[in-house]
């Protein structure tokens, strides 16, 4: 077993000054810079959510004014989408692991990678400025003409921040695509790549194709807001639906930016803790690509009741059903991966198992919304809110946390305390369901979203939801403490504590600055767990 003490050759030990961190070109250090940044924003967005749930514990709008409430859910959405979810897995786990998983010394363009992080910070500062100047009340969707003409909040500061952070993610996507195409180790053909890499690749393609559209759309919004001339305000001859088409052309694929990396993480974890290869590897890879491509064709399902033509509605509805198919294939294959496996329930596995169920619920409720007639009733209700939180929180955040736990030993060289981690994972699962399941029922019953007060008949379910949020918050805070503890007192990690397959587990924990002492050559299929099991059986004389 390789034990690497953080010394001069580990990436953590190479340079201990703040300056060495802020000028690093090492993808591993940049990943940590991102992780720290997005954690800060996760808790800021979470603070907004906490205030929202406290207000919604009672039907009357008694804690916060309607205007302030509008600002709270807007900032929650803007921060969680652009400053947490979109960068989360790609910029942290992706940055750290992509070169390691493919046998490379770094990403293709290390300086561009650092620039991406600085762009993130720069954009984030703009958004924080808007927050401190009083916030924005347009919703994270910035619909016109409210955002261009009627809102008197700091819209331009926020869209500038989003514009800048958009380029951060575009450059990351570009870097990943070139890296995966050009820097794979000898023998590492596409169909030997871990599914995490397939997922990062597909995500990067979406980042590159969709984000520029958002950038220009927000630019046009800002210009229209300043000049009072433009193409989005009907009073000026513009078309508000044009804004929505342009906005959702990006923002629907954006949700696949948020979930595809999570799917990649789940595949890695499930195979490891079931000691089984992923069932149907090729179809999993194809499904990832199909989700990315078809995901670009469904954006109009956000506009069923906006005044879009009936024909467009029908086309987008059918395509939305289609995009569920590859997702369902993945859920079936993950389940099949467990069959006749040797399953253990370490924290990463708890997150991954939770993901399968919660993602499935979120995905299936998406089908309800994709049906035109049902959507007329359910749109802009809490059903939608519950649907996307099941996918984004129950799915993406759970997978992110699972991944952080799974690769924590590799990144830090320390083991986290397993019992605390399992407890937090279970707490999160229950807290999550308590918070968001009642919201499906609230939506069906007709409670509208984005309101700071509601009719009395919705009271009980809202109290349940807010109580669940308390459990959820506790579950999110716990890892902060035990991860920090593990950095100083955690047991030192071997190179491969989980006996997982994958090139990243063949290097010390934490890795060397240059990743590999000798360049690896790959000549085996991924997820070689079955052969690993039979080798061990033979070795132990079974």
């Amino acid at each position, binding site marked *: 077993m390789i034990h690497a003490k953080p010394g*001069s*050759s580990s990436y953590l030990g*190479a340079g201990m000054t703040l300056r060495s961190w802020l000028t690093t*070109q*090492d993808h591993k250090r940049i990943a940590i810079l991102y992780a720290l940044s997005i954690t800060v924003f996760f808790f800021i967005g979470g603070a907004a959510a906490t205030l929202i749930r406290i207000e919604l514990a009672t039907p009357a709008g008694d804690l916060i004014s309607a205007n302030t409430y509008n600002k709270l859910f807007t900032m929650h959405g803007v921060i969680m989408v652009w400053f947490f979810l979109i960068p989360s897995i790609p910029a942290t786990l992706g940055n750290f692991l992509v*070169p390691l998983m493919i046998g*490379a*010394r*770094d*990403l*293709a*363009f*290390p300086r561009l990678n650092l620039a991406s992080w600085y762009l993130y910070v720069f954009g984030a500062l703009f958004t924080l400025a808007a927050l401190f100047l009083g916030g924005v009340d347009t919703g994270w969707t910035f619909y016109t003409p409210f955002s261009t003409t009627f809102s008197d909040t700091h819209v331009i500061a926020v869209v500038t921040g989003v514009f800048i952070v958009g380029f951060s993610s*575009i450059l990351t996507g*570009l*870097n990943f*695509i*070139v*890296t995966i*195409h*050009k*820097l794979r180790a000898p023998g590492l053909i596409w169909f030997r790549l871990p599914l995490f890499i397939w997922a990062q690749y597909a995500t990067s393609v979406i980042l*590159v*194709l*969709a*984000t*520029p*559209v958002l*950038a*220009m*759309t927000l630019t*046009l919004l800002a*210009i229209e807001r300043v*000049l*009072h*001339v*433009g*193409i989005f305000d009907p009073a*000026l*001859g*513009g*078309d508000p639906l*044009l804004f929505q*088409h*342009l906005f959702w052309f990006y923002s629907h694929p954006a949700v696949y930016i948020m979930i595809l990396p999570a799917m990649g993480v789940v595949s890695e974890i499930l195979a490891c803790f079931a000691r089984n290869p992923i069932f149907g590897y090729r179809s999993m890879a194809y499904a990832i690509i199909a989700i990315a491509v078809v995901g670009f064709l469904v954006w109009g399902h956000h506009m069923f009741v906006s005044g879009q033509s009936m024909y467009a509605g029908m086309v987008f509805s059918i395509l939305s059903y289609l995009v569920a198919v590859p997702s369902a294939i993945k859920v079936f294959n993950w389940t099949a991966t467990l069959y006749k496996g040797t399953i253990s329930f370490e924290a990463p596995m708890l997150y991954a198992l939770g993901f399968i169920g919660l993602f499935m619920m979120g995905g299936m409720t998406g089908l309800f919304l994709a049906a035109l007639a049902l959507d007329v009733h359910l749109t802009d209700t809490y059903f939608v809110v519950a649907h996307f939180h099941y996918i984004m929180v129950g799915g993406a955040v759970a997978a992110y946390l699972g991944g952080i736990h799974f690769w924590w030993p590799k990144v830090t060289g320390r083991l986290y305390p397993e019992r605390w981690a399992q407890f937090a994972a279970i707490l999160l699962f229950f807290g999550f369901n308590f918070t968001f399941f009642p919201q499906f029922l609230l939506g069906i019953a007709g409670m509208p979203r984005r309101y700071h007060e509601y009719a009395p008949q919705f009271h009980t379910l809202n109290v349940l939801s807010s109580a669940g949020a308390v459990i959820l918050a506790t579950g999110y805070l716990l890892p902060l403490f035990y991860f920090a503890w593990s950095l100083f007192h955690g047991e030192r990690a071997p190179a491969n504590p989980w006996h997982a397959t994958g090139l990243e587990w063949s290097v010390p924990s934490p890795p*060397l*600055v*240059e990743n590999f*002492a000798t*360049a690896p050559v790959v000549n085996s299929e991924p997820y070689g767990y079955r052969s690993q099991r039979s080798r061990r059986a033979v070795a132990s004389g079974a």
Partner: protein
Amino acid sequence: MTHDTALAAPNTDPFSDPRQRRDASDLGMWLFLTTETLFFGVLFAGYVIMRARFPHAFAAAGRHTDFALGTANTALLLTSSLCMALAVATAEVNRRRATLIWLGATAALGIAFLAIKGFEYHAEYVEHLVPALDFRFDARDFRGAEIFFWLYFVMTGVHALHLTAGVAVVVLMAARLARSGFGKQTPLSIELAGLYWHFVDIVWIFVYPCLYLIARS
């Protein structure tokens, strides 16, 4: 690991050979141009839909752009692309003087384009065709014409910003070449700059008919 190798600075260069670096840079630049295609593409999408909405107003407004200057500008940019391509070709064989001449010509044509654009903008300002700055137009087509000119200034403005960046890059490369001669990466850098320059030219190739060739007859 021997003591000696532990002391040697670790090799963190992602590339193993110059060919790989070249191919990766080429792919990276083309990917960047793909993002720019979608970035500018939003403007064309807006144009298409607004023109479908205000066909008469767009025709009326389109007659007020400067056909001669727009066409001349297009010719200038096309010529600048020729110069840039020649600069890349001479850089490939490390011909310093020729490369400097062609880079200089590229930048000069780019600057000439921007100067003519500025002249057009000024004329449009004088004719009250700048939205939000006392825009005046026949009442029947007012809204649509104002939107046409909004698109005109945004499309040509964003293009001009990109062109300015391109000119800056070309000038910087020429300056570095003049001062330090050809480095190992110089031909590649010039080639990548060339890709960007040609892309900005292509954007204009599509902007030109949108803004200058409506209802000219």
